[in-house]
């Protein structure tokens, strides 16, 4: 199988373009992510960050280009569920948890395992699954509230619950969209710490506006502008890039 791989990269975007009603949201975008890497994506509003996430997770189908995962799967031919099953998890900008489920059930639904109809009709919780649930709920500090409806959680707790669900999914690659939007400074720092811990075992792409947070993460940064890559490198390097400054301040 290894021989069939066309790239050693975990995620490889090649010449991806998509247009909505003539507006090019993503324009010939190419990007490479190595296994185990954490990458921060920044860029002004409308740079195409969310659309890029949509393309990787199968929500939007690109007009052109390839998105190769683990060197073997072309994600542009798969739907959201297939892509998730391959091992790509996504956290949305606005926390989306299942509000009328308990906290525990939210994690249970995300827990790695069979996704088929029949398997879930006759599913019973195994000891291993129970242990994993406890472990994750402890990690995201929601073990006390496990039987409460997710609707009753605070905004920050919902963010954490969603991260817990991502962990339960145990994906090879995590896409995290603005994880600290609306968080306090303390929560922001804690989240950065959590992401670094997650990165020990997973590859991560973080889309974020908060520069302090990106600095906290201390990882390679890709700057998007008008649907393509404007600059790439450490935060200091890209901050020094004239065109990046122009895009962010000049306009």
């Amino acid at each position: 199988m290894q021989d069939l791989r066309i790239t050693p990269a975990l995620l490889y975007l090649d010449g991806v373009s998509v247009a909505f009603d003539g507006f090019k949201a993503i324009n010939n975008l190419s990007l490479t992510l190595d296994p185990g890497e954490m990458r921060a994506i920044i860029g002004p509003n409308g740079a195409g960050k969310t659309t890029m996430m949509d393309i990787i997770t199968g929500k939007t189908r690109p007009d052109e280009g390839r998105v190769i995962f683990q060197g073997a799967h072309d994600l542009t031919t798969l739907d959201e569920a297939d892509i998730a099953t391959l091992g790509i998890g996504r956290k949305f900008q606005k926390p989306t948890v299942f509000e009328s489920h308990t906290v525990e059930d939210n994690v249970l639904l995300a827990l790695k395992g069979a996704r088929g109809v029949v398997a879930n009709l006759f599913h019973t919780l195994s000891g291993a699954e129970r242990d994993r649930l406890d472990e994750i709920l402890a990690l995201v500090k929601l073990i006390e509230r496990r039987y409460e409806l997710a609707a009753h959680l605070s905004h920050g707790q919902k963010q954490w619950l969603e991260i817990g669900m991502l962990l339960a999914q145990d994906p090879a690659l995590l896409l995290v969209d603005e994880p600290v939007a609306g968080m306090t400074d303390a929560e922001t720092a804690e989240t950065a710490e959590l992401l670094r811990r997650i990165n020990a075992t997973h590859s991560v792409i973080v889309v974020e506006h908060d520069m302090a947070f990106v600095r906290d993460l201390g990882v390679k940064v890709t700057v998007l502008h008008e649907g393509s890559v404007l600059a790439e490198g450490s935060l200091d390097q890209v901050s020094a890039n004239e065109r990046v400054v122009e895009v962010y301040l000049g306009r």
Partner: protein
Amino acid sequence: MDRLTRLIAALALFLGFAGLARAAGLEEALARFAVDSYGETEAAIAEVAATGEPRAAEIIKALAEGRLLAAPDRRVLIRDTHGIIDAVSGRAVSAPPDGLKPVRVNNRVRRAIDSALGGLTLLSQDPAKRLEAAQATFKSRNAAALPALETALRRETEARVKRALAEARAAIVFLAEDQPEADRLAAAAVIAERGDAEAQALLRSLPPQAPQRLREAAERSIAAIENRLALLAQVQNVFYGVSLGSVLLLAAIGLAITFGVMGIINMAHGEMVMLGAYTTFVVQEIIRARAPGLFDASLVVALPLAFLVAGAVGVLIERSVIRFLYGRPLETLLATWGVSLILQQAVRSIFGANNREVGNPSFMSGSFELFGIALTWNRLWIVAFSLSVFVVLLVVMKFTAFGLRMRAVVQNRRMAASMGIRTPWIDALTFGLGSGIAGIAGVALSQIDNVSPNLGQSYIIDSFLVVVFGGVGNLWGTLVGAMTLGIANKILEPFAGAVLGKILLLVFIILFIQKRPRGLFALKGRAVEA
């Protein structure tokens, strides 16, 4: 012999010898009616026609209608609406003799009557009558009329009538075995040019013993006419389709605003149409009772009233029910269904469950023919009307302050509110506008459909399909959607039958919505997902 007399009689008439006969001649001729023999009657018809008297036509008409009476003393009288009159003088007879018997007719006599009347009117002063006579002769193919036709043809100045005369003449010559083959061929060409079902029937009636060349020409023409008729049938289907499409457009256009623009699922939309139709009914009842002369204006009066009634009910529904359900489309669907039940039952309680009679004003009754296609005035008016409603609505949306505000609220409610637009009012008025237009549609639909409490129910599913098919939030889509569905429906009908055609169309739309859930003119992009 008989033929000859009639021929002479007709000739005498058309060559202007009528003066010879005069009243005395008329009396003599009339006397033959009293003999009570079909042969005599037939001869009498010819003679009466030959007199050329102004009363001749009336006498023969009376004969045709069984009002010509013979007295035992051989006087001939006519029964008209006022009483008995003298056939010759036209004066009333105060003491009609006993033993009056209507002059009997048989089929042969009837044919003689027709051709005589045809001959009498072929030279009438009134071009419409001449045309009618020419057409009648085309149908009767009465060879006796040939000389009269020739005369008339020579004198005729109006092209329309002249053509009809030529066709009538051709019809006779084409079938006449004693005519030269060249003339019959020329006649066949004239008939072929007419190109309708009657011409085809005429060509088909050529007996098999007719000359080879003539038969071949006839067959070629029959085939040509067949193609032409098939094409015409398609054109006619398209017209019926446009007509149905404009009905759908009328019913759906209000929905294009409430559902398409505002996103409200208004299941009571059909009831707004119904309210419009009942408004028309009430207006007509009042006009009938108070000012029957104004009946033709009833629709004009009903239009604004229907708009106001349905619009007001719409605003009431929006303010009392729908505004609490924004963002919950499925609940809106259920609540408005409830409203529709209430409205139906209310109308049923007030007006009764039966169909109500809504009359057509004179300008909407009747039909006319265009290139062999029968068009009814009310259909044509509805096509024109629905298109004008569409245009007016477009203008309101694009060029008025209200339209601008409405679009602003739809696109970004919060921004619009912060710019000082009173969004609740715009919501209510927009919904009122959509409902009012449904009411106007009701005025038009009352002209072609039964006005009953269930009127709206029959349109609601179709209307939704039109809006969904055309693309939500796009008025042009609604127009194209309505016309496409209307035409497709009418083109499918001849093959599949009305009901099966409708089912096929429903299945097609179901499949279509699954292929393009946002309709023909869909908006694309991220905004749609939100």
